């Protein structure tokens, strides 16, 4: 299968995402100013500080030419994974519900956190062992997930919350310990933790790998959602 990792000016974890994707498939860089998605099966909107995160995180990146294509791609059912800043961009773009607010600590925080897989029924968690916590690092200043109560209730009911911080691990004050959510169609997924930084035993725990493997499995074996 083929991943496409978007590169905005100010993307930082784009190469990391590329390397992680290449552990399970092909992967190419998609330049923010180009509209060509190069027939990828999954678009990754990576972490970093697109456009410096000025004004509001993700606020300016969402208007990049490539993002129009990503929106179409998503509406047509294509898989889109947003990591950290990518999650923020997808929320700003309206491809995912909710918004991300400053950490309650008001500080940037890097920490290895334990995540609970809420459900396997998504293209992004199909290969995650539900009884296995994932150890993945978070690194952000603006990761407090927020959605209005009624919307949150609908999301929980529809199992749109795919990942939660394990009890006592919530690093940023996210509502309901939410670490990652998908859209109603379940083909767009955003999370604050960085799975691409948890795929290589040489550099740390490998809790991120199952997420990339789930995507590959979904695309290649057409594993059921």
């Amino acid at each position: 299968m083929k991943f496409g990792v978007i590169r905005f000016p100010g993307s930082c974890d784009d190469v990391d995402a590329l390397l992680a994707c290449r552990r399970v498939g092909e992967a190419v860089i998609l330049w923010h100013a180009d509209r060509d998605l190069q027939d990828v099966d999954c678009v990754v909107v990576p972490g970093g500080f697109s456009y410096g995160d000025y004004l509001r995180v993700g606020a300016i990146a969402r208007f990049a030419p490539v993002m129009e294509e990503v929106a179409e791609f998503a509406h047509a059912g294509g898989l889109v994974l947003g990591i950290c800043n990518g999650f923020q961009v997808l929320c700003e773009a309206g491809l995912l519900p909710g918004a991300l607010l400053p950490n309650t600590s008001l500080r940037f925080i890097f920490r290895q956190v334990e995540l609970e897989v809420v459900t396997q029924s998504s293209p992004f968690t199909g290969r995650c062992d539900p009884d296995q916590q994932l150890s993945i690092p978070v690194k952000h200043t603006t990761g407090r997930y927020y959605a209005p109560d009624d919307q949150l209730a609908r999301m929980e009911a529809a199992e749109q919350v795919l990942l939660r911080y394990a009890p006592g691990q919530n690093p940023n004050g996210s509502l309901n310990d939410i670490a990652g959510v998908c859209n109603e169609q379940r083909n767009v997924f955003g999370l604050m933790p960085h799975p691409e930084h948890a795929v290589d035993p040489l550099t740390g725990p490998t809790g991120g790998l199952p997420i990339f493997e789930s995507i590959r499995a979904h695309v290649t074996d057409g594993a059921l959602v």
Partner: protein
Amino acid sequence: MADAHEGLAPVRARVLVKPKAGILDPQGQAVERALPALGFSGVRNVHVGRLIELDVEDPARLPEMCQRLLTNPLIEDYEIVEADGVNGAGSHPA
């Protein structure tokens, strides 16, 4: 529309952006906590938001700018203040 205004003297405008009521505002809380320590008592309901100042040729487009770029309707309310006073507020339905 903007074209119609090319050459017009631009208006200095301000957009005041604040967190929507009811959403936790740790920045405001931090300020509220810090003040007494410095000997400033009697301060309440502190909220921290954003100020955007700009010269705009066509002020009529400001609300649109606010809704599309300058604010996030889900989490923020805004108020537009032109050099000559308040001329519009926006509290988008969440």
